[in-house]
């Protein structure tokens, strides 16, 4: 293919608009003050207004006048645009055009020495906060890339350095290939950029997690505020820049729906409304997207269909991913229908040249052309605060506009020219005559069949002599056609060359032919009646743009998601064995009534009222299981970048669409505490959840949740098993751990004192520690060895507070008396041991011994698998140490509720408590039992029968979607290889749960 690319984008060289005060030494000074007048066009001045037969006048790169009755100045060049359309050129708000993204230094997460301090001086303490970055200083105009944008209709792009959490300012550039930097630069600091991702330019450890990034952003804003008031003794160029640019548009690269919510949450806390760069999956929870009140910048990298032709490979693709393929093209249309303002971006597209086809796809899926145009013109202009000069055709605006053959986004439409700052860029030659059709070509004695297709300015040919295909190449430029034919005898390397000027009469044309032997003759071309070829074309394009059935979203939008969220029901369970966990004990042949999400009655022969009756004869009913130590349903677990991370909270990073929530429900679990990991002595704050499968992150979190924080002791916090490089962070011994706590609590007391005096720098970490000291926040401390358990009790007593829970606490049995005396509970594993040195003395009798000493004991999981069998783990306390069955059952229900301070709401079957209950097929501690129904706040979230139905539906829907994908593949569309997505790792130093 000898396609002549240069034809696509051809910039006409004008006299440069030399600035008037610049000296000139290479000739006389010429100033271009002429007007260019575009007449007879349909001018779309904005997405909703068009002027038929309009006239637009431009001069010096700006629009002078637009309208119908406009008089043409004398010094005008007039261009007739009869039958053509004029639109504002597009704006892309989110690019890194002309700026190279730095490459990560780190290659392996495990190699290299950790870096705890910043590598820069005079800037913020964290290298990933770089608001002082001025992207202009690294910007290099990229003509080649600009051509790609121009071809797709863009006139202006906003660009920035995509690196770091606070990324500094970007610049707004017109794609004026022939102009100077001075011409192009519309704004040198157009907007300020943020993300959750660390800078590639530094290896500074903190933050290692998403929640760490969020905490760091908050602290940055607190510090900026404090700095602005002149409290700092040092100069901080980062905070100065941040403050200086706070009035600019603030753009946040979230990259996914849920990260968008997280960014918006941080913004709301500081009265900042970010414009959110989304992930294309916003359609899944449109109500929440709407509630952010944010403007969005949406990528349109709709996924290609998966190649499902190999059934063994296609197994990798989950229903959730299959659905996303099917649903994602509706994303812009759904946002638009819900009134969420958004602009569309080329960001995330593999190639800028895919842009038009993706927009067309979005339109096929319901996006109106007006909204599509607005998302590329007026809305991005508004995001940038440039709505009077960009994205609109009016007096005073930049002369950035498109001349097209038809209405924009139509499949047949051709963009002829893209004018930027009054300079013409030819995308497709307007004067080109459309030659598409079938012809008879006669050269010497042969009559060939000639078919021309493709864009008028870049036609393609197919030639046949009888049944023989003849190779051919065609060029069409300045109305000259050059056509080369190979010889019908393919063994010979010889060509026939044709050349002619095309006139408007395409029915008959002729010109010079040079035969292989060098002889010159005349060729003749006659057009055949149109139809055959175009009919065929229509068919193929129809397949490509046919809108398949769009599967409705579920809650969550993956397998086992519900089409509707379950609602609280009034139910009377008849005749069950009821484990009350109260003084009544275990009641046989007893009824349980739940109404309005609460337990309303326990006893014999209860009156149902309006409740649905379920016969539970032979079944057991208990309170739902509560897991004191879980790490499911979170996008991050450890913030390991500092030895204290009290500033982070798991509540920031709840993942409500983790399938393990459903699997936990199937094991009778109704509430969990998601704890921070054990990477540091002072960990992060917990989240306490009800496992309401399908609800948003906020709705999973307990209302008025008690405040908890994770602490940790032993091998993990002293990094014993982290490899030889991790030996510099304090503490590296148990001795150091004690001093660390004393240091932090002492500092917290001092902080509190200065806070009371009124002058202080707000510090989230210290605020959290004060809560602990004042008994408002409770510690659940990962612990193994008796010495360190004893130590923390002493530290707490020194600072006059009580440790709430020792979690894991595998040597609790050695100091159970001390624990009981201090009043701390023990949440332990049933029988884990021997996986590291500090658990060598762990024994399965631990729970029993602690229990016998009066410690409130819970059995926890720390594991997404074990958590769904906590009833079995509780039963092990009967086996190891002879705990009574009634007490053993409390180890996974009432006792964890007490340890989490939610026992006033859950943990036992008592009138007035939340209806969080489980119906078991038999004795709940038996290996042979199954959770039949798991109910939270009176709503059934798991039901064995419904699970069966869901399995069938999943299989059916996967079948349907597989067929759709195979159809796409067979119609020649691009596919991607099957993949199984794993939990997203936020950053390389993210440590998976540490036991």
């Amino acid at each position, binding site marked *: 293919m000898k396609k002549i690319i240069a034809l696509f984008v051809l910039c006409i060289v004008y006299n440069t608009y030399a600035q008037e005060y610049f000296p000139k030494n290479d000739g006389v000074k010429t100033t271009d003050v002429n007007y260019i007048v575009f007449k007879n066009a349909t001018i779309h001045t904005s997405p909703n207004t068009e002027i038929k037969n309009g006239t637009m006048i431009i001069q010096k790169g700006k629009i002078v006048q637009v309208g119908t009755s406009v008089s043409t100045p004398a010094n005008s060049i007039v261009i007739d645009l009869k039958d053509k359309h004029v639109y504002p050129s597009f704006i892309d708000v989110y690019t890194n055009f002309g700026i190279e993204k730095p490459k990560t230094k*780190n*290659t392996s*997460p495990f190699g290299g020495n950790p870096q705890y301090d910043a590598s820069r001086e005079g800037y913020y303490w964290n290298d990933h906060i770089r608001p002082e970055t001025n992207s202009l200083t690294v910007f290099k105009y990229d003509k080649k890339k600009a051509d790609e944008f121009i071809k797709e209709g863009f006139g202006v792009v906003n660009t920035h350095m995509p690196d770091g959490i606070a990324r500094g300012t970007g610049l707004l550039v017109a794609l004026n290939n022939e102009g100077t930097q001075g011409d192009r630069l519309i704004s040198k600091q157009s907007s300020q950029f943020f993300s959750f991702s660390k800078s590639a330019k530094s290896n500074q450890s903190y933050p290692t997690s998403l929640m760490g990034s969020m905490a760091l952003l908050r602290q940055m804003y607190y510090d900026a505020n404090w700095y602005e008031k002149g409290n700092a003794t040092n100069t901080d160029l980062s905070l100065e820049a941040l403050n200086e640019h706070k009035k600019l548009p603030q753009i946040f690269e979230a990259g996914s729906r849920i990260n968008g919510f997280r960014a918006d949450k941080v913004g709301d806390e500081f009265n900042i409304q970010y414009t959110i760069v989304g992930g294309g999956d916003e359609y899944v929870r449109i109500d929440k997207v709407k509630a952010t009140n944010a403007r969005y910048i949406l990528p349109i990298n709709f996924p290609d269909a998966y190649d499902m032709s190999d059934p*063994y*490979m296609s*197994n*990798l693709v*989950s229903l959730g991913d299959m659905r996303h393929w099917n649903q994602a093209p509706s994303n812009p249309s759904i946002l638009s229908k819900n009134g969420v303002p958004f602009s569309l971006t080329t960001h995330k597209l593999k190639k800028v040249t895919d842009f038009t086809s993706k927009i067309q796809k979005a339109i096929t899926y319901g996006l109106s052309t007006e909204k599509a145009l607005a998302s590329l013109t007026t809305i991005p202009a508004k995001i940038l605060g440039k709505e009077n000069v960009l994205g609109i055709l009016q007096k005073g605006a930049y002369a950035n506009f498109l001349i097209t053959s038809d209405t924009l986004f139509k499949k047949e439409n051709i963009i002829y020219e893209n004018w930027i700052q009054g300079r013409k860029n030819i995308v497709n030659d307007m004067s080109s005559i459309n030659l598409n059709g079938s012809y008879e070509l006669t050269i010497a004695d042969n009559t060939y069949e000639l078919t021309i297709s493709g864009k008028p300015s870049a036609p393609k040919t197919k030639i046949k002599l009888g049944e023989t295909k003849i190779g051919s190449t065609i060029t069409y430029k300045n109305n000259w056609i050059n056509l080369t034919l190979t010889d019908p005898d393919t063994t010979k390397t010889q060509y026939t060359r044709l050349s002619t000027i095309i006139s408007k009469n395409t029915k008959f044309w002729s010109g010079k032919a040079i035969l292989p032997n060098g002889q010159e003759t005349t060729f003749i071309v006659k057009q055949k009646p149109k139809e055959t070829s175009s009919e065929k074309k229509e068919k193929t394009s129809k397949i490509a743009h046919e809108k398949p059935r769009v599967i409705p979203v579920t809650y969550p939008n*993956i*397998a086992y998601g519900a089409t509707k969220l379950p609602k609280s029901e009034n139910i009377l369970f008849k005749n069950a064995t009821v484990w009350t966990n109260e003084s009544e004990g275990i009641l046989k042949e007893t009824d349980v009534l739940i109404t309005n999400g609460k337990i309303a009655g326990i006893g014999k022969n209860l009156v149902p009222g309006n409740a649905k009756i379920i016969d539970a004869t032979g079944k057991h009913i208990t309170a739902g299981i509560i897991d004191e130590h879980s790490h499911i349903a979170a996008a991050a677990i450890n913030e390991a970048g500092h030895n204290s991370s009290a500033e982070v909270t798991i509540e920031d990073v709840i993942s409500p669409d983790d*399938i*393990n929530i*459903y*699997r936990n429900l199937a094991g009778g679990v109704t509430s969990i505490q998601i704890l921070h990991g054990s990477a540091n002595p002072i960990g992060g704050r917990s989240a306490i959840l009800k496992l309401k499968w399908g609800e948003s992150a906020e709705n999973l979190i307990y209302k008025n949740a008690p405040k908890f924080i994770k602490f940790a002791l032993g*091998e993990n916090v002293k990094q*014993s*098993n982290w490899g030889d490089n991790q030996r510099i962070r304090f503490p590296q011994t148990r001795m150091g751990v004690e001093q660390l706590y004393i240091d932090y609590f002492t500092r917290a007391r001092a902080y509190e004192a200065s806070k009371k005096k009124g002058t202080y720098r707000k510090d989230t970490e210290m605020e959290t520690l004060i809560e602990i000291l004042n008994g408002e926040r409770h510690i659940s401390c990962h612990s193994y060895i008796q010495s360190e358990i004893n130590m923390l009790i002493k530290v707490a007593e020194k600072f006059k507070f009580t440790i709430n829970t020792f979690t894991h606490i595998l040597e609790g*049995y*050695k100091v*159970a008396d001390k624990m009981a005396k201090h009043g701390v509970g023990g949440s332990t594993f049933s*029988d*884990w041991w*021997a*996986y*590291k*040195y500090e658990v*060598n*003395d762990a*024994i399965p*009798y631990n729970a029993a*011994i602690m229990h016998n*000493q009066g410690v409130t004991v819970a059995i926890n999981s720390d594991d*997404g*698998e*074990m958590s*769904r069998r906590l009833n*079995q783990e509780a*039963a092990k306390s*009967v086996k190891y*140490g002879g705990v009574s*069955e009634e007490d053993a059952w409390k180890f996974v229900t009432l006792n964890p509720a007490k340890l989490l301070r939610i026992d006033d709401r859950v943990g036992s079957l008592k009138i007035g408590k939340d209806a969080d209950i489980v119906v078991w097929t038999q*004795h709940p*501690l*038996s*290996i*042979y*039992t*199954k959770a039949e129904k798991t109910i939270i706040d009176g709503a059934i979230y798991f039901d064995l029968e419904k*699970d069966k139905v869901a*399995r069938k539906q999943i299989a059916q829907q*996967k079948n349907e979607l597989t067929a759709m994908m195979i159809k796409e593949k067979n119609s020649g569309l691009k596919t991607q*290889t*099957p*993949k*199984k*997505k*794993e939990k*997203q*790792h936020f950053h*390389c130093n993210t440590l998976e749960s540490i036991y």
Partner: protein
Amino acid sequence: MKKINSTISLFVLLLFFGNIVAQQTPAKAQSETISIIGATAHIGNGTVIEDSILIFENGKITTIGPKTTATAIGKTIDASGKHIYPGFIAPNSTLGLVEIAAVRATNDDNEVGNYNPHIRSIIAYNAESKIVESMRPNGVLIAQITPRGGTISGTSSIVQLDAWNWEDAVLKIDDGIHVNWPSPFTQGRWWLGEEPGYKANKKYDTQVTQLKDYFAQAKASLQSKLDTKNLPHIAMSGIFKGTKTLFVHADSEKSILDVISFSKSQNINKIVLVGAYEAYKIGEQLKQNNIAVLTSRTHSLPSYEDDDYDLPYKNAKLLLDAGVLVAIQNSGQMERANARNLPFQAGTVAAHGIDKEKALQLITSNSAKILGIDAVVGTLEKGKDATLFISNGDALDMRTNQLEKVFIQGRTISLETHQTKLWKRYSTKYSK
């Protein structure tokens, strides 16, 4: 009283030696005939004898049947209302190869090199491991000790779990060779910016070919009359002669199908699939090809988001339904400490659709058949080793798995462990 004395003397010992004291002293050989009467005998082959009599002498079972069919001789144990089970078998374990996973010096399960058929697990088997002794109070009395890593991990051996040293522990030496079949999928290295999920392994076909080539090379070497010997190849000879079992660790449907065609092309008679998560999809083919499965851990999470929540629970059942010979193995996270939960893994399968006696077979007779030790263990049948125990209740349920007496080859086994000693020691502390 005896027990208290030993606890006290141990307490004194601990003062001197800290926690490094070895396991319980192995039991002496059976000296007198023992009869157990009145128990519900779970034979391990699917049948139950209520009110039974079981007699064993010189380490072998001599009588088993209803109480009415024989008279008790020797020492008689009245086990009325209790249950007798054959000792549970833990295939594909690393018991005794690793003591504390996080302490490198205690790790002996994974040798360097990719093709290690000559590497023998039995050499590193620590008969005095504290983890090994903790198996016995739950009824796990026999284990296959299996090396890990590489494409061919090495040679396993089968041991009973009460011995002075590895030599005494052997039940069947060098029973099989373990192959980790290449995975058709690879995982993205997220720290290099790759997507963290799984996608097709482009090298899969090459890796399978390399494995086949290795078998061909080994076959050729075995014909060699030269003095130069290839130790790894020689170690493979039992596979070709049919005296050793080839254990192939593979999970996905595609790799399992490839294993089937591999076994046919290599003329390997004794081949067992290990793990085999997706074997349930092709049970019929496995049955036709007479390939047994040591199924993936019952207590594990489904591999795929869309899978049934209880798929790992019922995996063994699905294979049984298809007529495949199945037993449970427990490799994976914390596999050693967790091996004592084998009976409860079988119990969980029973909860998800099979008869309890069938579930029992998954850790007794079926395991013995698959490991080729069914002539001596796996059921309570005449002539077999008296490797068995008495439990107060149903041993597949942790609520009732309370062992009273344990015998290995007729020897009366201590139920004390490092853990029970600590339990007693600290219970004593608080009772003062």
